[in-house]
């Protein structure tokens, strides 16, 4: 018998399991699916089938394992979607989906974005070609993104070799993933580092080699209401010059953007700001005008008052 192509065997497995009325046992699969060598040993078949099953699941094909009342594996099946509702989109939605899928062109999620669109087009009709202002293009790098997204969905611990900016060499990290964040042209993982027993942020481009998604459940789930965006935004190296300021509602847009990006523009705020030097701090505080008041340290307060007094005097105030 001619050797059967691997893709053909996988496709046969899919046909065998897809929409099966009852779970299909391993013995039935072995006997019926063209591509499994009938003369192979039990262990060779087991290895082959396990690998095929993993690959199909890795592609997002939902192979269900059905167990009987004693917990023994009875067989496998792939449920046929009961309806095509999930894939039914209006023409306008379809255009946006196509735009989203195209933005991954030559980037790391190109393949899933493409199959998503093809599935949707099979049901909703072909997407129009969009001439759009404001197309987006995802960055090409970060092979670690795909396994981390999977780990986030499954809520499983990941491990990987990581070399931080100041690390002399890479270290193995075991992390409960809480979030995957795109910020300022980079991807980050925020999670609980099991060995350091603390929250850590990792830049995906500093992950060395591949990411292992373990079968282990999270030890530390993500705290509710955790602001992942703020965690990644405030990770920048701290500046030496610091001051505490009070910002009134609707004022200090620049300082808000830099130091309290998530606060509403119409909240009164008290926060610590930082800059490369005292001169820059004084300039930022003075330039923000009314509505921004420096509280601390006293040296900065007095420099700001001196500067404003000299401006007022120079421009003829009180004369």
């Amino acid at each position: 018998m001619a050797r059967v192509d691997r893709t053909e065997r996988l496709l046969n497995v899919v046909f065998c399991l897809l929409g099966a009325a009852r779970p299909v046992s391993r013995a039935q699969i072995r006997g019926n699916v063209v591509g499994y060598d009938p003369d192979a040993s039990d262990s060779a078949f087991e290895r082959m089938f396990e690998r095929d099953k993993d690959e199909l699941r890795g592609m997002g094909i939902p192979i269900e394992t059905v167990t009987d009342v004693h917990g023994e594996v009875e067989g496998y099946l792939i449920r046929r979607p009961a309806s095509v509702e999930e894939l039914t989109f209006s023409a306008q939605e379809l255009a946006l989906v196509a735009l989203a899928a195209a933005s991954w062109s030559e980037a790391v999620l190109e393949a899933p974005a493409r199959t998503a669109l093809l599935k949707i087009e099979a049901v909703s009709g072909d997407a129009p070609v969009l001439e759009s202002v404001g197309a987006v293009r995802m960055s090409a790098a970060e092979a670690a993104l795909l396994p981390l997204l999977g780990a986030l969905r499954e809520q499983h611990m990941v491990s990987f070799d990581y070399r931080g900016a100041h690390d002399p060499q890479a270290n193995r990290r075991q992390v409960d993933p809480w979030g995957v964040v795109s910020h300022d042209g980079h991807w980050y993982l925020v999670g609980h580092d099991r060995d350091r027993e603390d929250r850590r942020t990792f830049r995906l481009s500093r992950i060395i080699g591949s990411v292992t998604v373990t079968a282990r459940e999270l030890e530390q789930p993500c705290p509710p209401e955790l602001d992942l965006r703020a965690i990644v935004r405030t990770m920048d190296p701290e500046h030496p010059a610091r001051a505490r300021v009070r910002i009134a509602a609707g004022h200090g847009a620049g300082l808000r953007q830099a130091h309290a990006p998530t606060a509403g523009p119409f909240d009164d705020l008290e926060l610590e700001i930082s800059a490369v030097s005292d001169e820059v701090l004084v300039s930022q505080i003075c330039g923000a005008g009314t509505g921004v008041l420096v509280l601390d340290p006293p040296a900065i307060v007095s420099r700001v008052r001196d500067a404003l007094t000299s401006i007022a005097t120079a421009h003829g105030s009180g004369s």
Partner: protein
Amino acid sequence: MTTSGPRLARLMTMVPWLLAHDGVTIEATAEHFGISTEQCEKDLWLLVVCGLPGHGPDQLVDIQFWDDGRIHVLDPQTLDRPLHLSGDEIMALLIALRLLVQVPGQHDRTALHQLIERLERSLGSTDAAEGLVIDSGVASAVTEVIDLALAQRRAVVLVYAAASDDAVTERTVHPMTVFTADGRLYLEAYCERAEAIRTFRLDRILSAVLGSPLGEGSAGHGEPTPRAVAHVALAPEARWALDIHPFDAVVIGDSVITATLEYQSEEWLTRTVLAMAGALEVTGPPEVRTRVADAATAVLAAYS
């Protein structure tokens, strides 16, 4: 071992797509799936030998395509509809859409938000939906103003924090297009100050105000907005500011630098003088001096 993933995924979506496009040509199918016609024929030949266990004649996928180059699915077996979207597929779309919603442009933002919510529900995992954050760094108010400017062909007055020198400048620009590169968003626009096309990072735009409508023709560059001029004196140690703000008629003396400073918004001028922390004095006109003095006094009042 070669990976069969992409081909398998294609084959599985091809059957329902062909079913919905009865009589489509091999060429059109190849183009739609981004493959060569040879590969498309190979795919079709593979599909027709696959089917249900037993491989009896009634248990095979039946596709006819060798008569006239047109494809007819006679029996799709159980592949008559695509499988559910996988987690990776949903997240790939979600990431792009969540970025897209932050990009100024001619999108229906309400439709975008609804689509995002729908896909989040499809994902079926709030942990994953909430744990996936796409932060373009662009203030939504900035997105809205540039949106309107592009749609109505109007100028925008930007307060822009340049990355190179940390200088904040005010510029009137005529937005042309928005694009992304490596996850960052950029605005390409004609800058009146530079009198040239410039690229601005959207996350460095501190504020944006809708400006005047752009005239027809002249490549959309419109009429320059009228500007006012203040006379200023600059301390020699603050000479660096000459490179940052639109000074003109600069005379560099030993103890003082005199110049004119162009401005459009009085608020910008006042803030700029305050931010110079005493190194810049407005020498005229008098009403501008008064405004600066009043602003400094008003801030000082908060400290007493």
